[in-house]
């Protein structure tokens, strides 16, 4: 089996090369963040002379990141929660066929992927409702019951036995009580992945805040980081700290949740 050994070795080499393409940028980012501006200007690629954690404090204050972080947490938290609840409202009856024209509604939701870009009338609408530059308006825009979570839920609910509905109904359980006290706990794995994928999408949005939130006090961390970049374009050590500040919470969260995330991406893609 020497050929297998050879291909295994080759596989490791390819993976290693690919890994460096993904990890080098992060190491380099960290390296730059530990430099002083003059150190960076003299030799940007050289290894930093030591840990300079005060750079982070500096970037945190100059970039006003506490405000931006709080906004991101608010938008991501509320819109993800609402999206999940609304997706359950839509997914359960459509997966079971408990409403007339279930298939029609399912396809109606599904075609949202193909429809003409709604960006412009959406903006005109939000504007005329007086919701431009408001936190409520932005949360509303980020809330939808037709996205990836909905599609995953439909697939998952189909695998939950229909007899469970009947048994619960026989015991006098009502529709909404069934949803929240029986179905939702059963959906834990798919809920976890739905939460993560929805939250990643909401947290990372840059176009939405650019269009809808002109007041820096309401902007999330993506927009904040981008403005910070525009402002300190030539001070890369400071910028690198800013990028890392935005990156770190996500990376830490990702390390804990990565099994769910990767598993969820698979489930979402294959079951829908």
């Amino acid at each position, binding site marked *: 089996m020497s050929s297998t050994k050879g291909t295994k070795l080759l596989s490791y080499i390819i993976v290693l090369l690919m890994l460096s393409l993904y990890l080098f940028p992060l190491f380099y980012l960290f390296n730059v963040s530990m430099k002083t501006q003059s150190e960076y200007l003299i030799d940007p*690629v050289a290894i930093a002379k030591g840990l300079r954690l005060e750079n982070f404090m500096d970037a945190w204050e100059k970039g006003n990141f506490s405000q931006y972080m709080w906004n991101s947490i608010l938008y991501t938290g509320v819109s993800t929660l609402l999206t999940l609840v609304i997706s359950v409202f839509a997914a359960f*009856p459509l997966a079971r066929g408990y409403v007339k024209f279930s298939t029609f509604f399912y396809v109606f939701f599904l075609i949202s992927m193909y429809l003409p870009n709604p960006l412009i009338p959406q903006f005109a609408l939000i504007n005329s409702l007086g919701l431009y530059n408001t936190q409520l308006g932005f949360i509303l825009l980020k809330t939808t019951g037709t996205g990836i979570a909905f599609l995953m839920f439909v697939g998952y609910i189909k695998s939950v036995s229909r007899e469970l509905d009947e048994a619960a109904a026989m015991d006098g359980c009502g529709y909404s009580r069934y949803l929240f006290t029986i179905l939702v706990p059963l959906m834990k794995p798919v809920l976890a992945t739905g939460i993560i994928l929805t939250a990643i999408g909401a947290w990372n949005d840059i176009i939405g805040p650019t269009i809808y939130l002109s007041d820096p006090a309401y902007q999330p961390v993506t927009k904040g980081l981008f403005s910070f970049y525009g402002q300190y374009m030539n001070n890369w050590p400071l910028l690198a700290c800013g990028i890392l500040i935005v990156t770190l919470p996500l990376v830490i969260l990702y390390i804990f949740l990565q099994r769910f995330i990767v598993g969820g991406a698979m489930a979402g893609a294959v079951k829908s």
Partner: protein
Amino acid sequence: MYPFGKGAARLMPYLLLSIPVLLYLLLGFGPSMVTVLFSFTNASGVPGQTWNFVGFENYMTFFTSSDSGDRIASIGRSLYFAVAVVVIQNAVGLFMAVIINKKLKGDVFYRAVFFLPVVLGVTVSGLIWQLIANPLGGPAQAMMNFFGTSSNFFGDYDIAFELIIFVQIWMYMGYSMTIFLAGLQSIPNDLYEAGYMDGASGWKAFKNITFPMIAPSFTVNMLLSIIGALQTFDIIYVLTGGKFNTTTLAFDVYATAFGSGTSDYGLASAVAMIQFLFVFTVSMIALYYLRRREVEM
């Protein structure tokens, strides 16, 4: 059969379903349809200006005005972007999935690392590559110096767009790979054993067993990346802001409606409609061939 009672109780699912339906009608489907209307008007974001029906004027403007060279070029660029991203991202994704599926040590770690850019998001990923490509002495420049040339990278008319394509593929390769991995892991091992008996190993086994068996995840990946690539513009916004010959149709919609100094909703809606026809046609053709491949096997 609906088990949760009769009469008023029968209305509960409708009541709860009406929330997502209304939200979608108001903020998704409705605005999409209004885009069609807008594309035939001179609607604009200038306050106080009246909106009139202008027929196909916006479409004419797209194809015949003085700056329509750029707009028409953006159609070609959208197609170029989509083909490059779809082909390379899925080829590399499939290749890496096959390799990682060989039960290498540390496979969970590799999967996590390749998926990481999706979590970091487009702003962070974009700025990281800006840092690397910094023409004033970033590592990319250091490499160029080694070969005795230099480049302005994202500020270079000749290669800025290719660099954007590279960053896009870097960001989403792991996503494609993950979906392929799911497909690969659903193939029963006996198939390979039976194939081995019949003399199918290596490339032959891949062509005759693996590739047909992952047809569903292949379809999903192709469709997701075609639709995604044709509609993506946030990466362009972050990396070049559409300068240096990097606009696509999707970016043009944004720039015409919300760019600095312009708010031509009518024209932007017409661009959105052209983009829609483009996305719809390409994805329907792709779907037709992909489905046929799934049926054949």
